[in-house]
């Protein structure tokens, strides 16, 4: 169950607003399996994202089960963010609790674009999916403490609610795991305004 969000960080410039406008969100398809497999199938990515290294077959099995998933019935789903006709991010929404209206989210960005501003778009699309389409109240992610890039980005709009001390990781030894969360109202206050030219969340002033 423990997993993490991995997204790149970079101070957002004006281009990000243009890019947000043309990013699209869609359900994962069979053709995406090979693409996302390619992103996941390297040690650096897995060290940030997974509790333990996955074999190529395990990655395939994990992705295949998400193709055609129905979030309502299956309580999980795989989604892809496209930019300019190219997949730039993958959103895995899981453990959806339709009573508490919460869900856990895994975010992944195309490694080639990790340091680009497009990474933030994937987070924005995760909010759009959860709050504007599925009507959830809250999403959360488990992020390993060593994944500092992701934490730096996520903390601009999400809050760290808990830190699980010394979660065991066979690959790297004990490591703290942060639980970061985003509420629907915070999404409205911050991420939706990303569509407005000139709005930069981490520089906003307290009212």
């Amino acid at each position, binding site marked *: *169950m*423990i997993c993490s969000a991995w997204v790149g960080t970079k101070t957002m410039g004006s281009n990000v607003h243009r890019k947000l406008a043309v990013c699209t969100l869609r359900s994962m398809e069979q053709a995406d399996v090979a693409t996302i497999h390619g992103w996941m199938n390297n040690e650096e990515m897995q060290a940030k994202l997974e*509790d*333990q290294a996955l074999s190529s077959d395990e990655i395939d099995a994990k992705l295949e089960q998400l193709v055609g998933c129905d979030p309502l019935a299956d*309580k999980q789903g795989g989604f892809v963010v496209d930019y300019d006709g190219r997949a730039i991010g993958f959103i895995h929404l899981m*453990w959806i*609790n339709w*009573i*508490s*209206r*919460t869900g*856990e989210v895994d975010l992944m960005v195309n490694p080639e674009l990790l340091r680009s501003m497009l990474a933030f778009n994937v987070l924005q699309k995760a909010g759009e999916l959860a709050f504007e389409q599925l009507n959830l*109240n*809250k999403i*959360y992610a488990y992020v390993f403490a060593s994944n500092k890039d992701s934490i730096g980005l996520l903390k601009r709009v999400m809050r*760290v*609610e*808990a*830190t*699980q*001390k*010394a*979660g*065991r*990781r*066979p690959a790297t030894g004990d490591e703290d795991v942060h*639980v970061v*969360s985003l*509420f629907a109202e915070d999404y409205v206050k911050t991420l939706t305004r990303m569509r407005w030219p000139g709005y930069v969340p981490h520089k906003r002033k307290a009212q």
Partner: protein
Amino acid sequence: MAISHLTHPQPSGRDSVAGAGVRFHVAQPADVSALHAWYRHCQALPFFTEIAGPTPTFTRSQFRQYCAQDAQLMVGADEQGLCAFILLTYIQGDMHVANVDFRWREGCPEPDSPRAKAFAAALRQLCLRASVTKTHLLSLPLEEDRLQFAHWLGYVHEGVLARHFFHAGRCHDLQCLGRHEDDGVERA
């Protein structure tokens, strides 16, 4: 579906703990049925406290499946019948991590009482049986006796998940607690 410990019990020295008029043992099918009957009673507090579910309207077979899939269940019984349960869920064998849920029918016993010590020993047995070295517990802030009992067991506060759990008409915060089994040794 892995329901091995419910359908094919394997008696061993790790299967039961007794003390202070209460005996904890690894659940048998009849115990699960009794627990389901307890679960179906309308209650002010949630029977299970976990973030991914479960539904409060489980049928008996769904309930049985929940208590068995990647899970280990121990129940406590006294002269009046079932009085407590300990459930490890989402057991991650490679990580040696699991979520734990427990409840006493008549409220948690006083810390350091014989019943509390029997419970602590049973929890430790269950973790050993599941090869779990760290457990996570979620609790509503209003469950003061459960929190006090958890702290006595060695659980430490790890954070609060705000408005994370819907029960009885509103979303509640959840207290996150964690314990390394090494920290709980002296209680057992």
